[in-house]
């Protein structure tokens, strides 16, 4: 039997110690399901430049305060780190430029808020999304 190589041990250790999460999923209230969403629109929504849907009323943003899901989602959707995103919204909210996102510690609470709030959009680990919300995909 071949001895286990040092490289294999490192890979195993990395798998054990790396937090496991699936890709972030964009979730929205079911009344948002019919909205057209491309990458530019998604960015405009999360940066507070687009504040109303075409048919689903006012946009209400729901974000996770921190964590790998937030980092990955915001890097992709808003092209910002969580820290830069928070600073962007602090600037807007404190200077009369926008209404800050609702922020949540737990994904379940965020999903519940989105499910109950018309116009709401947020993100969670895809494993957390369920039938209470619409899962949106970004058009190419």
């Amino acid at each position, binding site marked *: 039997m071949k001895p286990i190589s040092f490289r294999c041990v490192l890979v195993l250790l990395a798998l054990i110690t790396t937090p496991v999460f699936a890709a972030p999923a964009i979730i929205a209230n079911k009344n948002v399901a019919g909205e057209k969403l491309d990458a*530019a629109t998604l960015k405009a929504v999360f940066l507070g*430049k687009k504040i*109303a849907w075409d048919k689903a009323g*006012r946009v209400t943003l729901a974000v996770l305060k921190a964590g790998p899901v937030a980092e990955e989602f915001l890097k992709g959707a808003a*092209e910002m780190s969580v820290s830069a995103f928070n600073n962007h919204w602090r600037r807007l*909210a404190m*200077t*009369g430029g926008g209404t*800050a996102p609702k922020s949540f510690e737990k994904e379940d609470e965020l999903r519940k808020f989105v499910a109950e709030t018309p116009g709401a959009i947020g993100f969670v680990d895809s494993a957390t999304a369920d039938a209470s919300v619409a899962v949106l995909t970004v058009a190419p």
Partner: protein
Amino acid sequence: MNKNSSLPGLGRVVLVSLICGALAGLARGAIPLGSNSNVQIGGFIGQGYIVTDGNNYPFEDKDGTFDFREMGVNVSTTVGDHLRIGGQLFAQRLGNYGEDKVKLDWAVADYNFRQEFGIRLGRVKYPKGLYGESLDLDAVRPFIFLPMSLYNPVVRDFNSAFNGGMFYGNVNAGKAGSVDYKIFYGAIPVNPDQGVADFFNTTGLYASPGVTYLHIDHTAGGQLQWNTPVNGLKTVLSYSYLNGLDGIGKFSAYPVANVALHTDRYEYTTLSAEYIRDQWTFAAEWQRVAGTFNVITPFGTSISESKVSNWYVSAARRLNDKFEVGAYYSSEENDNASPGSPSGGNHNRDWALSLKYELNEHVIIKLEGHSINGTYDMFNTVRTPNSVLKNHTDYVAIKTTLSF
């Protein structure tokens, strides 16, 4: 002014930080930003200590002072799909400026028709450069003082907002990114109690205590921000002017009569760029400030050109969850210096180094040092006395801010 204290500056600010930290714990429960409420409440309280070696700058602080604080509380809510209303009260003390008087900082009704077009009416934050609208947001940067060549805190009470209206919007430019625009017009109420008065008072034209009447007819301008396709890079062009700026007071050379400074148009043109990549934030801005003043005395009227070049470059790096460091070099240059005037009086070159520590989500502590060569924009007035201006000034500031 409170110049005597049994606690050294650092100790008092740390003590204030700890109290703020405890308050922050309460605030988390009291301010329901994450709830279903349609009303948002936010705010900040900052307390600092500053001591200078050299000249009193940016306000009276040579003996060290705790008269360095600010607070703001804002409330906003949404009405329907497109309307948002809100406002903020603000109070500040910077040496002998501000006196902790509570003032309406901004108050707007904002109707956003669509992404490309909205209207904001009321008392609106003044868009100038990268940070003109967010002067007070300690939490978003490592610096206690933004580069004073463009963001002098003494004039914050005058140029942070205007009463009027603004058109704004965001236009998608496809692969070229997007463009934010703002176009505004309004009035700026000014009075001799404000810090801006000392820019008149330090000219030597006015008898003590200085200018007794200040007026600006109106202000207008615009801003274009290009959110480039390069991730994290934006560039900004800002232009604005003050129309019909007047400062009147007793003439120092003949105090029974008045002297007046008047300009039809005082212009600010600012080019800015900011690049955020990973843990780094780089910024650079250049600004030209220009106006032609009539100096009206009992003995006749003369013309005085004012032309100043301001610029800075800055870099900041977040080290980890708790610490961020930053540095900048900031320069003001009088481009219309009087022949024979000492060169140090026509420039102000400032090296700054800052450290920010985040005690928790709500409380930060900052430490900052400055080394300045030159005396341009350093006052000798009743509120900021410098009977003999020295060519070099160093100062250290420490500040803690609670935001919620």
